[in-house]
């Protein structure tokens, strides 16, 4: 575990974060303008695409990588789920420890940017989070246990099961928001 601190990859961090910055700002801004139904429709679409990619293990063409990293910023700014695209691009290019520590910092950076943007726009009343003050303490247990077993578990069947659940939820969001919009 102590050796993992050296595995943070600055080059990949900058390659992911720099194209994402404009998207994160725009996405965080747009959240005030779009309706809840449109957001659900977009999220449902994203879930379906994500699960199809996961189930069929599709490869992202190299020519699209930079474009998708820009789109990733937009998705993260809007919904906060900008993980799958950069992970899909870099998962075979760096080792698992490096991937975890580098992307943890990527998400911390993008989430702090969202908080700043939301605060400037006064999008949210952050006092709502006081109702969930226990969450950071409760998350300590799964975060620690997860690290302990992340190298021991076979993820093939689990990924498939999770993908099917997410596909069903994605289709649910798509259909419900489509009906609400039309």
């Amino acid at each position, binding site marked *: *575990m*102590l050796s*993992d*601190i050296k*595995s943070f990859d600055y080059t990949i961090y900058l390659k992911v974060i720099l194209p994402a910055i404009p998207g994160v700002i725009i996405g965080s801004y747009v*959240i005030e303008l779009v309706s*809840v139904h449109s*957001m*659900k429709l977009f*999220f449902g679409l994203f*879930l379906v695409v*994500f699960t199809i990619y996961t189930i069929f293990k599709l490869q992202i063409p190299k020519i699209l990588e930079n474009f998708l990293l820009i789109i990733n910023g937009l998705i993260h700014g809007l*919904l*906060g*789920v900008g*993980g*799958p695209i950069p*992970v899909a691009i870099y998962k075979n290019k760096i080792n*698992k420890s490096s991937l*975890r*520590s580098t*992307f*943890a*910092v990527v*998400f*911390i950076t993008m*989430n702090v940017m*969202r*908080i700043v943007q939301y605060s400037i726009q006064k999008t*949210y009343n*952050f006092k*709502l*989070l006081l*109702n*969930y003050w*226990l*969450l*950071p303490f*409760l*998350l*300590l*247990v*799964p*975060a*620690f*246990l*997860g*690290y302990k*077993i*992340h190298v021991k*578990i076979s*993820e093939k069947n*689990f*990924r498939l099961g*999770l993908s099917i*659940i*997410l596909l069903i*939820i994605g289709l*649910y*969001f798509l259909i419900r928001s489509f009906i609400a919009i039309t």
Partner: protein
Amino acid sequence: MEVIIYIVFILCAFIESVFGFAGTITALAIIGIFVDMKIAILLGLFFGLTLSIYIYCYQI
């Protein structure tokens, strides 16, 4: 409702921590069914930020 949200977040934290992906998406997908999507996104932000900090700290 808060209890359901806590349980979902704990399970999804485990997923994210073990597999390094899909935790936040799963949490947002499930919680988005129960509460307003914009509130779910705020809770997802709180969840994602906390978990990223923990994962990075454990790596150190």
